[in-house]
Each structure stands twice: as structure tokens, then as C-alpha cells.
């Protein structure tokens, strides 16, 4: 890329450690550097417990980072005070994973969608706000007859549409989508994915899409970051990652997807042994070493750094040190 573009969101060595018991630190997010450009989608994939949701929430300062910077349009928002941050939140929104738990059961659909606008006083009168809320229901494909319904009366797909309408209500620039479709059936999942992609085109939104489902992430993302125990193992464009995965963990993840194709039936799956180790006080060296089939002596001693091995393709693995 010749011209210098300013990333909408950039994190610099972002860390979030949780204290668990005496002298024990859980390294949930451990030195993440990433850049997201306007109008793009970055997918963050990893197994449960790898810190992908914590990363999403830390970027919005819903969880305060332990150290590091979060730059929004080049401005470090970790330095903002509460009042400034509150204003900022209009531009940074989140769609939560569980459409059953993230909506207030005592508010009606229209009240839920209007709530952020009332808090932020984005429009002069209540009437304007409710008109806009009704308009948003059209935008996300919710019939207006549900305006006075309560969340428990609706199914998962419709509830997720409420969550999307609520996030859109304050005209955000950047939305963290935290597993927005994992609780939904495939046919509904496809409806919501299409909606998110249409909205992105219409409103020039930038997404960070957190998920464990690799086929979904490939479909929606421009770039993909593979996380493991709080660290980024591989970061590259979506096409490149699926064509040329370099990190052994990424390769194993891709090979583990059961494909709806019987010709792949006898394909040898690269099953990785064991399970994710504890993120509490991790040992030095590569975090994936214990499960890696290519593990060498060096992997236990020294942690590999994230290096650019091909244009736009970053990998943290000792195997990729030499020329490929």
C-alpha cells in the first residue's frame, strides 16, 4: 500500500491481566498489536478462553487495560476521562454474543433500541428518538408490530436484530461483534450475516468480528487474527490465511473443520493433542509449544515474535524464521 492510511483502531502492545489469587496473574490479553482500517472487518478467531472476547471489550474500555495503548483515529483513548469516554462510546459499539442475556427483560423492544439515544441525548425530543428507533427496526428487518413486545416473546434471530438496532442507534463508526451468530441456527445465522454485511456497505462501518467459527469469519472478514492464550499467532488477509496458513495451530484449526462434503470424508484430520493450557502465569517460550507437533527445544526457551514473513502476513513461530 503506497499511500499512508490512518487506521481507525490501533492497539499498541495491549495487555489485560486479571488477578487470580495471590501472586497469580491470568494473562487474558498479552501484547496485542493490531490495526483496523475504516470500512474493513477484522476477524478474531480462537478457542474458548483464548482472550478474544476480553480483547473486544478491552478495546472499548468496558474492561480497563492493564497496559498498552488503544488509538482511535490516532488518539489514545486510554487517557480519556469518564466524561469524554462516555461521549466516545457513541462511536464505539458492541453487539453481544448472547441475545438472551444482553437485553433488559423489563423493557419493550422500542425502549431497548431508544435507550442509548435517550442517555446520550442524540436527538432533541423523545418523539424524534422513538421515530428513529422505529426507523431502525425497519433497517434491521424487525416488523414494527414487535415495538411493544418484550424480548422473551421473540426468538433468537429477532433478539439479535434488536441488539444490532441498539448498537446502530448512536451512529457508531466501529462495532465489536462478539460472536453475534453463534447462538443461532444456520438459516437465521445467514440472515444476520447478510444484514451485518449490508449495513457495513451502507453506513461504512468498521467491524471487529470475534468468533470461533472459521467458516463465518472467512465469509465476513478482510483480515483475520488467530489468537491463542492471549497472543496473536498469525495475522493476515482472509484469503491468504485459508490458502497458506503458516502457523501449526492455524493449520490444525483449519483441518479440524468438518466440511459438508463427502469427498473429504477420508481426509486425514490433523488432530492436535491435548487442550488449551492455563493462561495463569504462563511459562516462557511459545504458548502453543505443549500441543505443537513441530515443537523444538528452542520453542520452550524463547517466545517467538510476530514477524512479517510475506507482505501483510504476520506469524509468530520459530519455524517461519528462515525463508519460506
Amino acid at each position, binding site marked *: 500500500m503506497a499511500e499512508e492510511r490512518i487506521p481507525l483502531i490501533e492497539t499498541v502492545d495491549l495487555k489485560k491481566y486479571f488477578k487470580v489469587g495471590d501472586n497469580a496473574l491470568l494473562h487474558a490479553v498479552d501484547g496485542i498489536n493490531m490495526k483496523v482500517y475504516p470500512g474493513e472487518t477484522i476477524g478474531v478467531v480462537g478457542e474458548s478462553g483464548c482472550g478474544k472476547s476480553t480483547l473486544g471489550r478491552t478495546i472499548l474500555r468496558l474492561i480497563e487495560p492493564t497496559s498498552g495503548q488503544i488509538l482511535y483515529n490516532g488518539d489514545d483513548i486510554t487517557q480519556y476521562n469518564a466524561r469524554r469516554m462516555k461521549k466516545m462510546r457513541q462511536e464505539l459499539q458492541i453487539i453481544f454474543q448472547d441475545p438472551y442475556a444482553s437485553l433488559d427483560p423489563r423493557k419493550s423492544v422500542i425502549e431497548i433500541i431508544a435507550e442509548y439515544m435517550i442517555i446520550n441525548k442524540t436527538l432533541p425530543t423523545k418523539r424524534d428518538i422513538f421515530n428513529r428507533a422505529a426507523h431502525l427496526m425497519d433497517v434491521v428487518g424487525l416488523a414494527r408490530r414487535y415495538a411493544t413486545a418484550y424480548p422473551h416473546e421473540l426468538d433468537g*434471530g429477532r433478539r439479535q436484530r434488536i441488539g444490532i438496532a441498539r448498537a446502530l442507534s448512536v451512529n457508531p463508526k466501529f462495532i465489536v461483534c462478539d460472536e453475534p451468530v453463534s447462538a443461532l441456527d444456520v*438459516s437465521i*445465522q*445467514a440472515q444476520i450475516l447478510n444484514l451485518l454485511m449490508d449495513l457495513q456497505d451502507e453506513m461504512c462501518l468498521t467491524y471487529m468480528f470475534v468468533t470461533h467459527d472459521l467458516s463465518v469469519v*472467512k*465469509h465476513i472478514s478482510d483480515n483475520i487474527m488467530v489468537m491463542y492464550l492471549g497472543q496473536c499467532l498469525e495475522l493476515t488477509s482472509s484469503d491468504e490465511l485459508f490458502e497458506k496458513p503458516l502457523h501449526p495451530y492455524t493449520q490444525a484449526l483449519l483441518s*479440524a473443520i*468438518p466440511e459438508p462434503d463427502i469427498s473429504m470424508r477420508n481426509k486425514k*484430520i490433523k488432530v492436535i493433542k491435548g*487442550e488449551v493450557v492455563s493462561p495463569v502465569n504462563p511459562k516462557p517460550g511459545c504458548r502453543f509449544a505443549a500441543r505443537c507437533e513441530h515443537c523444538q527445544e528452542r520453542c520452550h526457551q524463547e517466545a517467538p515474535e510476530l514477524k512479517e514473513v510475506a507482505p501483510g502476513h504476520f506469524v509468530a513461530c520459530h519455524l517461519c524464521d528462515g525463508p519460506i
Partner: protein
Amino acid sequence: MSNAEKMLDIKDLSVVYKTDLETVYAVNGVTLSLEKGATLGLVGETGAGKTTLALTLMRLLPERTGKVTSGSITFEGENIIDLPEAQMRKIRGDKIAMIFQDPMTSLNPVLTVGEQIAEALLVHNEVGRSKEEIEARVDETLTLVGIPPARKREYPHQFSGGMRQRVVIAIALSCEPDLLIADEPTTALDVTIQAQVLMMIRDLRDRLGTSMIMITHDLGIVAQTCDNVAVMYAGEIIELGTAEDIFAHTMHHPYTDGLFASLPNLKSKTARLQPITGLMPDPTNLPKGCKFAPRCSRCMEICKEVPPEVYTEGTHSIRCHLFHQSKEN
């Protein structure tokens, strides 16, 4: 297919959940059979009636509300619908075993893992195994699913999700069942762990010759593990065939087509998914004609009025008016 090979034969099975307020039509006239050693995949979305069908096979429907209104289930030559509970208890867990969906809640938190595996063996102890023999069998089953037998004195909370699912599988396998029903065995697990568990189930099935019903909503899992596939929608089997019929042929029920079009493709880049519009019908108030008609892109007049008959071609059968029409023309 001779009757001797069939180990399970379900004929015209209908199940309702009845309360004072409403009647939920969960399973509507399902006919299915399973040969010895084969694996049947039961696919469908939430509310399609997959789990109800499984619970009916185990005779575990909620007593007060769940009722079988018609049909028969013949398991190894015996109709298990009318069996007295005392006799059913001998079959359940011994000849037919089930792997439940959620490994987090289907284990007893106050018993050790070893005690829970031994429980099934103690209940079905016709051969009169001694305590030591049962312990030995517990160790053997744990080894089979890849858990070191030394961990049998631990409690479920000391295990991770993948390991707990292995324990649930060990309980189901402890009595060497003839029929194993796996209800979404990997839904709660990560892909890498899912791959481990699926490989193990496949390997055990081949080694022990167990027949299996694999319930899932993931077409990928079905393609990788099943010989036959039944697609369920609103309590009916709308398409049934071999894995080749479902995955390699182009002729499908519009719902099956919709399911495939909803999946993001890993190999090619599709700009837009083609989801099925709308939602599953309310099971208390099902449409009069074809149950998929309100969501179907190829719906005809007849579909709204008359429930379609099954159209069969070889091993492949589809419940849809479209194919009857094309045959007539």
C-alpha cells in the same frame, strides 16, 4: 433390505406435548429404520423435533406432558412403546444408550466420575460381575475414551468441557450398547476438541460395531460421519437418503437446498449467503399443507392445501410436491 438386518424400525411415529393450554406437535409421522452397524445422521434446526425423537426412543419423554399418539418403534424385534417400565429399564442404558448434549449439566456433580460410570454397570449387572470386575471395566472404558483411569476418583468440575464429554461417552459405552444415540455430542466444544471427540466416536463405532444415530445441526459433521441422513423439519422427515444422495446429488427438498445455501463456503468466496426467509412454524399451530410452504421459494398453490406425499427414487426419498409434478409431466 430384509427385516433381519434392521435393528431399529420406526413406523409412523407421532409425539405431542400436551398441556391444559396447548398441544405441541413435536414429531409427526416419522418413519425410519436403521441397519446393524450403520450410522444415521438426523439433521435439523432448533425445534425440528430431533431431540424429542431421541427421547422417545429412550422412553424418556416427560411423563405428564409427552405422549406418543401413534406409531411403533421396533427395536431388535420388540415394540418398545408398550413395554412396561421395568422391562424398558433393562434396555435403557444397556442396549440403547444416549450421549446427552450438554456435558456441563448431564453429569452428577456430587459423584466421582468412576462412580457414575459404574452406576450403569451395577444397574445392568445380569452376569453378576464382582466389585473388582466392575472397577476393571470402569478403567477399561476410561482408557477407551482416552482418560487415564487414575482420574476416576475425580469429580466432574475437575474436568474440562472436552474431557467431560468423554466421560459422558464413557458412561454410554460402558454397557456396550447395540444402539448409541448421540444428541449433538460436540455442540458445546471447540473445533479442535470437536475433531478429537468425533474421531474417537468414529473409531469406537467401527471397533465395537455399534449402530448409531447422530443428531446434529451441523451438515459438516454429518458428511464426515454418517452413512444415511434424515433431514427433519417441523417434526417430519422431509428428506431421507444415503450420504451420497444428500451431499452429491442435486435433487433436494427446497429446505435442504436452503440449509446448504446458508452455509458460508470455505473454498470459494461467495458475496452473499442465500438464507431461508422466515422462521420455523409454531409447533402448536402447524400449516395445513406442506409445513415448509410459508418459507419455500418454490411454493405452489397445492403446497398450501395438501400435505405432500413422499417421492422415492432408489434410496433417496423427498417429501415435496415438486417432484410428483415433474414426474407427471
